[in-house]
């Protein structure tokens, strides 16, 4: 493929020298059991599965496959621990959670390297986003443990019991933190199932939890695939279910919980519109678009996977975006220069590639970066689609990869209508220099998180979660406590 003219050829005349993060300081065991009742135990059926490095397809470790019986043991351990944990002096509960935060900070470099090895995300992101935010999340919720009576005026807050939590592979440690920290602070105990392609940092977190001295059974971690997750969600001893993943599975879970008294929160898919008005700071907006869709290979439920650009600047924005896309470095996740790492799994790559074909079949024009990608591993070049219409599948459906669909608009109301015209409502972005327009648009978009003149920012104090089919409930901030409490008059 001929290389297009590139106005941002950062590497002309010189090359980036590889700057790989070393892995000699990390420890990954050959085999991991299930973390139940404070110990790593072998799975009762003796089955294990492999976890691999998606950038090299190399084997990393053997992971226990938890059966229904194992899940039952974990729930029983959590139930047993619940009595004492929920009655512990709240300030002491907080101190345990503070300890977890501190140990993650101390071991941050190790966690970052393992996260990138197991999941394929660039080390820059695991180092600067995933791991520090995970520690911050524990630190934030630790402080709530003895202040719950101030969170909900006129109510008494009570813990629920055992929380069954199922998390995705895109932010493995961070999602574990989002789930575990508020659950513990509110006095619940936990059975957590990490995703099958990224179990390692959750198992390292089990080590941290043991080192922090938490009573056995307060946190249990069971590894496996969908069946293990289903066993966690449907176990009669689980009082609260928290799930982050696809809308498809969310729907199955909501149905499965019908007729039970379990409380549940669902963080599901998204198809966020990033809206660029003609009066935006265009260069900043282009950076925001790049961050919105290419951050974490686009494996982000709140990714800005639709670009709505005002017609008068569309040509300029698309050209600048294509130029910028050419400069993105795709490759070794452990290299500190890398912008886009490996696709998380062969299965996910297959799904993304299917959408690339669908987009073209539906008549959209595809533009990809001309960058080279490694021979081994799972890779997808950053991709944009132009000439798409609102009904195209690449506009309506979540791809969960580095693939952006670009549409144009003329008027404010056209932008708002198009932005809201999907079943999702997780996030959105708006770029303009006019304050009044920002407020009008951020109020008009039916989504739980709106970034104005920025994108993909996260913080433990900031509630996150969706409208419509993007799920229900919030994680983060004071509002995130609600999911783990019973509020009584």
């Amino acid at each position, binding site marked *: 493929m001929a290389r297009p003219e590139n106005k941002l050829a950062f590497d002309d005349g010189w090359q980036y020298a590889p700057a790989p993060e070393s892995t000699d300081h990390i420890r990954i065991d050959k085999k991991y059991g299930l973390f139940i009742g404070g110990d790593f135990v072998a799975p009762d059926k003796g089955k294990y599965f492999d976890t691999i490095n998606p950038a090299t397809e190399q084997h990393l470790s053997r992971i226990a496959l938890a059966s229904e019986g194992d899940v039952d043991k974990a729930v029983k351990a959590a139930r047993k621990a619940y009595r004492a944990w929920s009655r512990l002096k709240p300030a002491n509960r907080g101190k345990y959670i503070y300890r977890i935060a501190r140990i993650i900070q101390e071991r941050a470099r190790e966690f970052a390297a393992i996260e990138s090895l197991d999941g394929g995300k660039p080390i820059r992101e695991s180092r600067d986003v995933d791991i520090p935010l995970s520690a*911050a999340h524990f630190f934030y919720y630790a402080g709530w443990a003895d202040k719950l009576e101030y969170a909900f*005026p*006129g*109510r008494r807050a009570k813990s629920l019991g055992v929380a069954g939590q199922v998390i995705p592979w895109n932010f493995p440690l961070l999602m574990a933190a989002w789930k575990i920290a508020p659950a513990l602070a509110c006095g619940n105990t936990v059975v957590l199932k990490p995703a099958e392609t990224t179990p390692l940092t959750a198992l390292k977190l089990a080590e941290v939890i043991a080192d922090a001295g938490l009573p056995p059974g307060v946190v249990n971690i069971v590894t496996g695939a969908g069946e293990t997750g289903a066993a966690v969600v449907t176990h009669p001893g689980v009082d609260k279910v928290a799930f982050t993943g696809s*809308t498809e599975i*969310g*729907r*199955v879970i*909501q*149905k499965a*919980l*019908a*007729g039970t008294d379990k409380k549940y929160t*669902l963080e*599901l898919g998204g198809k966020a519109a990033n809206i660029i008005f003609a009066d935006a700071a265009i260069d900043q907006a282009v950076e925001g678009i790049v961050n919105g869709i290419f951050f974490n290979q686009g494996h982000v439920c709140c990714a800005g996977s639709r670009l709505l650009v005002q017609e008068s600047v569309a040509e300029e924005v698309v050209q600048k975006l294509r130029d910028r896309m050419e400069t993105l470095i795709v490759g070794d996740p452990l290299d500190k220069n890398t912008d886009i790492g490996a696709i998380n799994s062969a299965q996910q790559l297959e799904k993304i590639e299917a959408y690339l074909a669908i987009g073209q079949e539906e008549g959209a024009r595809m533009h990809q970066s001309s960058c080279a990608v490694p021979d081994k591993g799972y890779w997808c070049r950053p991709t944009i689609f132009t000439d798409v219409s609102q009904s195209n599948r690449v506009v309506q459906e979540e791809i969960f990869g580095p693939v952006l669909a670009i549409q144009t608009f003329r008027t404010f109301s056209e932008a708002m209508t198009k932005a809201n015209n999907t*079943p999702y409502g997780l996030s959105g972005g708006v770029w303009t220099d006019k304050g009044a327009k*920002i407020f009008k648009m*951020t*109020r008009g978009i*039916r*989504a*739980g*998180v*709106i*970034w*104005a*003149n*920025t994108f993909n*920012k996260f*913080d433990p*104090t*900031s*509630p*996150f*979660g969706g*409208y*419509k*089919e*993007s*799920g*229900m409930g*919030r994680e983060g*901030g*004071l*509002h995130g406590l609600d999911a783990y409490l019973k*509020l009584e*008059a």
Partner: protein
Amino acid sequence: MATPAARVPVAKTYKIYIDGKFPRSESGRYFPLADRKGMVIANICRGSRKDFRNSVVAARKAQPGWAGASAYLRGQILYRIAEMLEGRSEQFVAELTLQGVARRAAQKEVEQAIDRLIYYAGWADKYQQVFSSVNPVSSSHFNFSVLEPTGVVSILAPNDSGLIGLISNIAPTIVGGNTTVVLASEKLPLCAISFAEVLHASDVPAGVVNILTGYRDELTGQFASHMDVNAIVYCDGDKTVARAVQEAAAENIKRVINRAQFKWSEAAAQNPYLIHDVQEIKTTWHPIGT
């Protein structure tokens, strides 16, 4: 036998309320409502699936305008509903008694209903301040979270409470900018339709509240499964119904709100968390800088 000079009273035709109008059910069906002695009090519209769909269209259309109205205005409109109801108290007491409620209890129920409307009218411009937040994020951004209405809410009003149960669910839903389609009590439907007339006289925009009468068995599934409804509220403790509602609601990840535990005549049945139940939390970020 009436004397030749006595006046013959005019009975009311009880119709459903959709988009600010009072049609009969498009289906042309009815069910007779009888008093304790088996005398027919009224022929009640047996609302259909299509009536429900039409109501959802009206509710969806009305929602952005209603949510966009100022909190002060929504509060005044709720207050106005209470004023109108106060003026027609006697009619509601009579209807409740006609349906078998003791007169004193009926009087109390109507008074409570009026007071409950005033209670929620007052919340219109206050719940946002109680539940919203400015979030101290670590980066250089201004970040805040506010409540926004969930959208269109379907309500299966309590079957055993003709007025207070109905109002206790409608008021917290609409005060927060939602619009609603309500299925009236099957046993005690009269007040629901008369309440629609009160709403109609209270500057509530067309489509904000739509009220149907009909059979629970027939309509519950529709209320729970419709893809353009964002949340469903139900109030009766039946486990089979609860299960069916929750299963159907999952089709579009509807918020399911079970209010079986409330005793509607008690003070605890009014609180701002009933408003909160049908709200979403929106968080907005903006950089601080130049």
